């Protein structure tokens, strides 16, 4: 399964909806999308991984890289995820303390 990305705006946030597999092969495409958004001045991002089937450490690295970029502009990068198989990876790596992880895009927006 390939990686699909789509972007939309909600309130003051750019929501990146990701589906498919984020791995060592596909993660560069997500990185490019995040870099492009930040370069266009979008510094409050929400990455929705509800339709992601697989996420590895390369994907996590891309998300952390995105977080660093937006924070350098006083922005934010939140994650929307409810799947245990993905949340486990965030827990193992300690990234649950780094990202805001929410059940829905609305909840992520409301947290700000």
């Amino acid at each position: 399964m390939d990686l699909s990305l789509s972007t939309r705006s909600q309130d003051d946030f750019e929501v990146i909806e990701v589906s498919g597999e984020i791995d060592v092969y596909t993660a560069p495409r997500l990185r490019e999308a995040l870099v492009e958004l930040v370069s266009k001045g979008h510094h409050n991002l929400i990455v929705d991984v509800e339709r992601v089937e697989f996420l590895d450490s390369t994907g996590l690295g891309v998300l952390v890289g995105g977080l660093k970029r937006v924070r350098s502009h006083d922005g934010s990068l939140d994650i929307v995820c409810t799947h245990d198989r993905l949340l486990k990876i965030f827990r193992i790596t300690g990234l649950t303390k780094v990202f805001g992880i929410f059940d829905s895009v609305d909840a992520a927006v409301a947290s700000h």
Partner: protein
Amino acid sequence: MPRTDAPASAVNLCLAADLANVRLARLVSVAVGRLHGIDGPMLDDVRLAVGEACGRAVLIHNDNALPAPVVIDIDGSAEEFSVTVTSQEPVDVEQRRLEVRGSRVEVTANGGLAIPETFALLGGLADEVDVRSDASGTTVQMRWRLPPPAD
């Protein structure tokens, strides 16, 4: 639930060091895992751990322009399931250090590697992770203990 008639099978994959092949290694490992009755969260762990280990091996082969394939051995019995990923990067054992994409890995006296952050995720996914290195490369073996079959 583990199958009592699970085959004492061994599958050997020799994959070109192409990042696209990491997914193939994941798919085959999951398929063989299912033959051994693995499902649910443990199967997710196998999928992710194999992806991590193979991805690391492929990246190292690419970085070193190694033409040799990355080798994945998948094996199992009624009690245990294991996946071993072997990369063939040059390791200067005399220096007792190995640089893996910026992460320093300590080579221990017996040829094993101390678990660095690179392998921290693997340690959380498999029941046992054994990383060994010698002059011919590095072997990452991941093992999962299978629960006894139900009566």
